């Protein structure tokens, strides 16, 4: 049983994970990251899980890393820190990950949010990378994923001033895909996750893989990769079922094959 995460029983293929260190505004300590990596590893291998929603509570998605934990590490300690390995496992989760963000989404929390494929944010959410205020810089993709999401000027401003942006600004900048009223944020994320869970799982995983690849390769390589994935899906039963159901005007019945 994880200590810092709550999971809700699987429903319609959607797994809901809740970060649960309310007294620390869900600060991401090493133990929590490890639990999250383990959970996502399991979910990646579990055929019944089709999509995952990750959320915090109404005050905070996650307000950063655990500063006290970090304070005890010297250069060698940071070199041997297991956290980058946990982050890599979270990034490698092959199924759609949807973040529902209320309140503070800062530092490591903002970096975790950027590992999600889709982000639904509450109108009261705040996004920022305040690491510079501690004399450090983001260390889990904050400088890399942010600049790809919002562009150079805003990413530089956020990383260099440490000042957060509000939800409206995050939506304009493309950091999040949708805003909701605070009370409806998780609901809307689950809604999206359910819709995704009804689709062909293999196509979904290929889609995620190809979308992620787009950020890492030049256009020609990305297009070639997309085509390969597209071709690969032609070998699946679900692809035939999807097309047939469309022609016969009925709901497809996907089996993940």
């Amino acid at each position, binding site marked *: 049983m994880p200590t810092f995460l709550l999971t809700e029983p699987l429903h319609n293929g959607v797994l809901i994970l809740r970060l649960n260190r309310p007294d620390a505004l869900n600060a991401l300590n090493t133990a929590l990251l490890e639990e999250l990596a383990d959970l996502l590893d399991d979910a990646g291998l579990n055929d019944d899980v089709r999509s995952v929603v990750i959320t915090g509570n109404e005050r905070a998605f996650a307000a950063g890393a655990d500063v006290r934990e970090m304070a005890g590490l010297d250069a060698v300690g940071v070199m041997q820190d297991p956290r980058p390995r946990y982050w890599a496992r979270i990034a490698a989760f092959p199924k759609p990950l949807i973040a529902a963000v209320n309140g503070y989404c800062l530092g490591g929390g903002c970096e975790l949010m950027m590992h999600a494929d889709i982000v639904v944010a509450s109108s009261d959410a705040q996004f920022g990378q305040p690491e510079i205020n501690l004399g450090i810089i983001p260390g889990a993709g904050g400088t890399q994923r942010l600049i790809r999401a919002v562009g150079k000027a805003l990413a530089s401003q956020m990383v260099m001033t440490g000042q957060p942006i509000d939800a409206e600004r995050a939506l304009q900048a493309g950091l999040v895909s949708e805003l*909701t*009223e605070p*009370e*409806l944020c998780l609901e809307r994320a689950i809604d999206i996750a359910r819709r995704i869970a009804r689709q062909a799982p293999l196509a979904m995983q290929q889609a995620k893989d190809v979308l992620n690849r787009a950020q890492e390769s030049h256009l020609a390589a990305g297009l070639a990769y997309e085509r390969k994935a597209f071709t690969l899906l032609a070998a699946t039963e679900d692809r035939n079922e999807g097309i047939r159901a469309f022609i016969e005007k009925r709901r497809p019945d996907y089996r993940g094959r």
Partner: protein
Amino acid sequence: MSYQHIEYRVDQGVAILTFNRPASLNSFNAEMHAEVRDALKSARRDAAVRCLMITGNGRGFCAGQDLSDRNVAPGAERPDLGQSIERNYNPMIRALRDFPAPVVCAVNGVAAGAGANIALACDIVFAARSASFIQAFCKIGLVPDSGGTWTLPRLVGHARATALSMLGDKIGAEQAAQWGMIWSCVEDDALYDSALACARQLATQPTRGLALIKRALNASSTNSLDQQLDLERDLQTLAGRTDDYREGVAAFMEKRQPQFQGN
């Protein structure tokens, strides 16, 4: 926190915040700002509070910033008013606009500068017949703040907002009510009781629903019709889940008075 410059009490579901520096027409200094911040935070956290009422002691409601708190001697460094606004006035206006229950204001006398705009940031404003509103900023080379340039055009229209802001003319309570700048102008000696009766009545109503109404109206000024329709749908979803909605419908069907709990 014990208060020197304001009074604060909660009575029958109504939190009453009274500006209390009558000698300087309840103008704001740094300490008063801190106390108001603290009181608004308490009111917001207090589950017993289902309406907030704001008024002032003495002749004035509030004369805005206490200028004796500001050093503008020649040769002194030029002040950064933006800092004081960011730290003090803006959070107060945001707290009033976001307050999750109705905010009733009883304007007991002159409301000048930020004082006028604090009143206009409230939901339902009563003013004594002898009270007046003055956008005094232009007289000293400043811009209306505390939301004045946003609330005024919406309340009285662009032409009147511009003239009020540029001329700095005093407008009486009666005129303000005729213009729709405030809800109601009442006789001086009836002001406090009228506003309190309204606040007490509101405190018995479906608080959550009222807070959602406020959220919708606040958003309407920047939303398109399409966005507003979406927002109304979402807020109605939330309102429809409240116990008070269920009670309201049940009481209607059973032809009895509803008993709202505010959730």
